[in-house]
């Protein structure tokens, strides 16, 4: 059930498990390059959050996924199904916080947490700098409403009005990072209006914060804040730009993870 719902894929040879979790806007494909490098030594677990990639769209529950805790529950369910113990969780972007919440929900499941471009709160709040203004998040939601980016391939025939004749549906150019536009908008709302700052000091897992230069979504000051708030954490500033070093500089991300574990 859970395995199908979240399109869980398991590979690799090691005894210890390493679970990779994608962020907003993409799917498990964004981890392929890095994950492959760990297959000789780890049991590698990839999955799609519900609403993204090839997950089961019918499992999408707007109330559950209005909070990051809902996504963390799914991570814990996958972990239980695979009987994970003292595993490593690698989360990109919003999934870094989802992983943090999962370690709180199920102590012992993950002993190590690797946060790539994390942010506990995107919107500025008093002295706290998240990098976003409230109005900017609203503008993003408006933009997503306007944009039909990433129509799910599974939905295309239905959208074209010929669900019984899929060959009449448009062949979608983009085979990665598919998502239902409405779910994408709700995921954006959940992500960019989240505030999990209070959870950081409670984290018990050994944690690595991986930060990029010139990341407009999670700027370095946020990464430093996360590092300062998590008791048992290390901080590494990668020589990479943008928000997705797992794609723009996979070898650097791989090296940093390897050095940590």
């Amino acid at each position: 059930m859970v395995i199908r719902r979240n399109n869980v894929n398991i590979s690799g040879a090691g005894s210890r498990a390493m679970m990779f979790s994608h962020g907003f806007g993409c799917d498990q494909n964004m981890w392929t390059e890095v994950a492959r490098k760990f297959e000789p030594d780890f049991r590698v677990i990839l999955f799609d959050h519900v609403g993204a990639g090839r997950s089961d769209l019918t499992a999408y529950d707007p109330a559950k996924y209005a909070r990051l805790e809902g996504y963390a529950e799914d991570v814990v369910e996958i972990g239980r199904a695979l009987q994970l113990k003292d595993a490593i969780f690698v989360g990109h972007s919003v999934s870094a916080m989802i992983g943090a919440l999962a370690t709180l929900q199920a102590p012992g499941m993950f002993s190590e947490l690797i946060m790539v471009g994390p942010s506990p709160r995107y919107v500025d709040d008093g002295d706290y700098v998240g990098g976003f203004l409230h109005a900017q998040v609203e503008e993003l939601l408006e933009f997503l409403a306007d944009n039909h980016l990433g129509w799910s391939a599974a939905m295309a025939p239905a959208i074209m009005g010929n669900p019984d004749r899929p060959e009449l549906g448009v062949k979608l150019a983009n085979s990665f990072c598919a998502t239902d536009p409405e779910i994408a908008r709700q995921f954006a709302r959940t992500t960019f209006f989240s505030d999990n700052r209070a959870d950081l000091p409670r984290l018990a897992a050994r944690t690595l914060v991986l930060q990029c230069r010139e990341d407009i979504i999670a700027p370095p000051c946020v990464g430093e804040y996360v590092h300062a708030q998590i008791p048992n954490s290390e901080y590494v500033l990668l020589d990479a730009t943008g928000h997705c070093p797992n794609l723009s500089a996979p070898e650097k991300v791989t090296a940093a993870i390897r050095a940590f574990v």
Partner: protein
Amino acid sequence: MGEDLADLYENAPCGYLSLSPDGRIVKVNRTLIDWLGTSSDKLVGESFHSLLSFGGRIAYETHMAPLLRLQGFVHELALDLLDTEGGKLPVIANAAEKRGPDGEHLFTRLTVFKAVDRRTYERGLVAAKSEAEAKAAAEHDIAVLREQFIAVLGHDLRNPLMALAAGVRMIGERETLSGRGRLVVAEMGASVSRAQALIENVLDFARGRLGEGLALNRDKERPLKPVLEQVVAEIRAIAPDRKIITRFSIEQPVDCDPERIAQLASNLLGNAITHGAPGLPIELEAYTAEGEFVLSVANGGVPIPPAARAQLFQPFFRGAVRRSQQGLGLGLFIVDEIAKAHGGSMEVSSSEEETRFTFSMPN
């Protein structure tokens, strides 16, 4: 004269933009510079982000840039480019990565088309869709409220009607009345019965619509014949001038809700009184046979047109031919619901000789 490729690049009827792997503008054509009302000097070296609205920037970083890395291209991006005056230029863009011999990322190239009219049209579509969805949701809410209102109203009307029925019965039985008075009281009694039956139907309908379904109180022990005889007696009281022939052959106990079967028979008989030819008798037949229980009501008169037969059991359906006030058109709908609740079914046959409604259920 041959085509000038340099001129084609600069003055193509679309915009060209090349980005370095870290997202800075390295080359841009004349057309796009003119659309944005800027100059080449100002654009080259700038981050592509500076051309995008905030939402566009985030969407580019989280979705489009990863997609470009993964598959090397992205088609049909809808973006708003910011011009020098802060205005937004809606565009559609295709993007592709130019990669070196070893697969290293050299440039990201974008081809940009103006999409002002198209975006206006798309926004109109989205707005119309949300409007229709909001309207449908609101109408659904109103419908639920209306059905709840019907259920409450029907329920609250039952008590005063019961008091009225008891009062009319008491006057009829105990008071000394003139001949005319007796006639009026009998008609009043019939009207009250009819009102009660209508309210029961409305309540059942509302319950069904509110998702509660039709509840059955099956009682195999209770003999069905006296229950049906009571129904016939009530109908005879309402329509004393009509002839009702009964044929009962209920040999085995019937696993049914006797009250519901009484309601079914009452609705069918009431229907036969309303629609049947006044001079012809009405027939009620009920029997048990091998593995089933069958109850049917027949009347003479004008047959039901074939086209109408299919819709008879729909709620609020009323025949086109009306002689008198017929009520809400819920009677046959409830009959059908009772039949289904018993795991049975309703059938109708109609000819010049007779119109017959037959209920059969496994027993």
